[in-house]
């Protein structure tokens, strides 16, 4: 009956302007330093096509913030090609058709690299758009850096040279959870899988099934449910209870995770949740004490590092990196490192060269090295498994609870094998 909000903006105008100003300031100083060499160089243009209105705004906003943080670092270091890097935000309102529309807008604006994170469906849309654009416009290719689309098909059926996935996949998260929880003795031998009925949830379910032999558990029951539509999870909790599992694996996010945990808490269900998105802002505060003792496998956790990155992020943005902000900043960091190895002498930017450089980049993140696997452009990256505890080093949501690192699984052990369905066409060299 309604129309999703399409606008981004005014609410963020004041803040946006402040941000823009700091961006411009750093741009000005960088440009001043370099103006002697190149006066009319072509700037590198980055487009963030994110859910900046609609139901997933909170997540989209975090991705955009972290990308901007990373780009500020590039510009502080002198920008690229003799110019500061330019960032533009495009609001996809959480929908694929709007994302397609904004992609065309970005191309019209001359964007070289697009970033996107919230929703696999939109990532699927954008990677196809990028593929088609690149076929039709040789020499003007666009790179797509995928920050959060974890569906397997993005590095499977839909894999392509100009798509880079700077996040984990379902098997990576599940395998890490299984290995860490087995070691700490919290896994048990009966596992339940409850997931959302779309590619991500289906991937999670498949990964839980696949890890059964290694984890030494049986999957007692599994269920796929509608995505973010269910008001009342009590029936699902009743179903979980009757299966009697020790651990419940779920890839649920947003409302679906929150309500599931709340309903489990209300019914006094005694299981351990193994999750992928428990650190989404608001989850811990809303779930309260119910959240204690549950696990999450993630790209990054402040508690797993020496804290240097967390402090510098806080100094720049006013808060410690939360949820997706950490690994998003690393993706831009990897890009920065790749950019340092190419030089267009202030002339035309060749994105294919940047993509090739990105393939060869190994970025030393605070939790370990992140590199690109050339066969499918999935990143080989460490996975952090954490647990909700009271009085952690970095409390979440203003509560006295937060995450404590249980284990960091190194990239080469965490990675899932290349899918047979990936047939990547490389550019002629």
């Amino acid at each position, binding site marked *: *009956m*309604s*129309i999703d*909000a399409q606008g981004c903006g005014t609410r963020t105008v004041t803040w946006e302007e402040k941000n823009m100003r700091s961006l411009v300031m750093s741009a000005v100083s960088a440009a001043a330093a370099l103006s002697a060499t190149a006066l009319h160089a072509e700037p590198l243009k980055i487009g963030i096509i994110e859910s900046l*209105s*609609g*139901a997933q*705004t*909170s997540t989209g906003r975090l991705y955009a913030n972290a990308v901007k943080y990373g780009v500020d670092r590039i510009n502080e270091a002198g920008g690229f090609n003799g110019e500061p890097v330019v960032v533009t935000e495009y609001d996809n309102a959480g929908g694929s058709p709007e994302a397609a529309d904004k992609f065309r807008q970005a191309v019209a604006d001359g964007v070289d690299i697009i970033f996107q994170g919230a929703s696999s469906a939109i990532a699927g849309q954008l990677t196809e758009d990028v593929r088609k654009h690149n076929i039709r416009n040789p020499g003007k290719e666009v790179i797509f850096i995928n920050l959060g689309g974890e569906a397997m098909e993005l590095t499977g059926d839909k894999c392509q040279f100009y798509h880079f996935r700077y996040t984990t996949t379902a098997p990576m998260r599940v395998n890490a959870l299984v290995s860490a929880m087995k070691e700490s003795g919290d896994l048990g031998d009966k596992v339940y899988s409850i997931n959302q*009925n779309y590619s991500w949830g289906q991937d999670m379910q498949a990964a839980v099934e696949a890890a059964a032999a290694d984890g030494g558990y049986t999957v007692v029951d599994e*269920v*796929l*449910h*509608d995505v973010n*539509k269910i*008001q*009342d999870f*009590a*029936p*699902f*909790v*009743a*179903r979980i*209870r*009757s299966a009697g599992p020790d651990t419940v694996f779920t890839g649920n996010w947003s*409302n679906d995770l*929150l*309500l599931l945990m709340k309903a489990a808490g*209300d*019914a*006094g*269900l005694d299981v351990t949740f193994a999750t992928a998105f428990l650190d989404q802002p*608001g989850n811990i*505060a*809303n779930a309260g004490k119910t959240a204690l003792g549950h696990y999450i496998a993630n790209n990054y956790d402040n508690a797993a590092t020496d804290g240097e990155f967390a402090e510098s992020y806080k100094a720049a943005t006013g808060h410690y990196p939360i949820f997706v902000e950490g690994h998003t900043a690393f993706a831009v960091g990897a890009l920065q490192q790749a950019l340092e190895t190419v030089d267009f002498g202030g002339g035309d930017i060749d994105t294919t060269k940047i993509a090739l450089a990105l393939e060869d980049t190994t970025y030393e993140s605070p939790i370990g090295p992140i590199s690109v696997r050339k066969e499918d452009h999935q990143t080989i990256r460490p996975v952090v498994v954490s647990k909700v505890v009271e009085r952690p080093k970095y409390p979440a949501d203003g509560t006295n609870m937060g995450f404590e690192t249980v284990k960091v699984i190194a990239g080469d052990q965490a990675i899932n094998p290349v899918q047979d369905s990936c047939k990547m066409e490389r550019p002629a060299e």
Partner: protein
Amino acid sequence: MEFAIISTLNGVTYGLLLFMVSAGLTLIFGMMGVLNFAHASFYMLGAYVAYAVSSVFGFWVGIIVAPIFVGVTGMAVERFLLPRVHAHGHAHELLLTFGLALIIEELIKLFFGDFPVNYQMPAEMRFSAFQIFGADYPFYRLFIGGVAIVMFTALWLLLTRTRTGIIVRAAERLPAMAEALGHNIPMVFMFVFGTGAALAGLAGAVAGAFYPTNPNMGLELGVIVFVVVVVGGLGSLKGSLLASLLIGLFSSFAVGLDWSLATLFSLVGLGDWARSLGGLMTLELSSVSATIPFALMLIVLLVRPAGLMGERN
């Protein structure tokens, strides 16, 4: 057995909540022939008003203020807006309420943001009423159900046992005659509309503390409420109650049933053939539980538009 009993309990409480919202909608339709698209927005408005008020004055003040606020809003809509478009017919009344729904939703987003707000029940109500098969049963669920039952009884007594009820029913059946007898019919209409809206507001205030209070809650519930009033019979209070319980129980049980059309075919030995077709055949009931209510609504509209309990006309 365990699953069946718990699911029945859950289904009944959810059904009673649906009834709280649909009662007002069906009352208004039965009376004035207006299908109020903004009704679910009244439900959402109730939750947000209760949230805003309760964060300052406490939970119970919020529960009382919310239905009054929403009821007055409803009366204002009936008094000042609907008459303007009445001359252009029911389609325009429906479109107007549809536009109002849009405005209410966007206003709420303007004031409260896109995210769920932290509207919680008071701590003293957060306990388990009893244990069943080792599972706690939250007291608040019983509270929601209780409010709905009290409301239904009160409404029923009001309509059938009081003088006001007689006038309202007279105004519904023969407005011209009732007016000729000296009753203030526009006043009655405004009162009915306001009551309907207030009921939705009360439902929102009560349920918002248990289910998430977010700007999508009206949209999510809105379509289901239409299903309820259509299946029950537009304008029939008893029908709404029956349909609410039906839908509530169904959505509670559907979760546990891995039936598909292929299962049905395998009863006659065609299971493998049906499974080989894929598509619709192998969809499990649990994964399409959101679809079934619409199919039910469609069937009722086509086969028996008066619904389960509605009068044929």
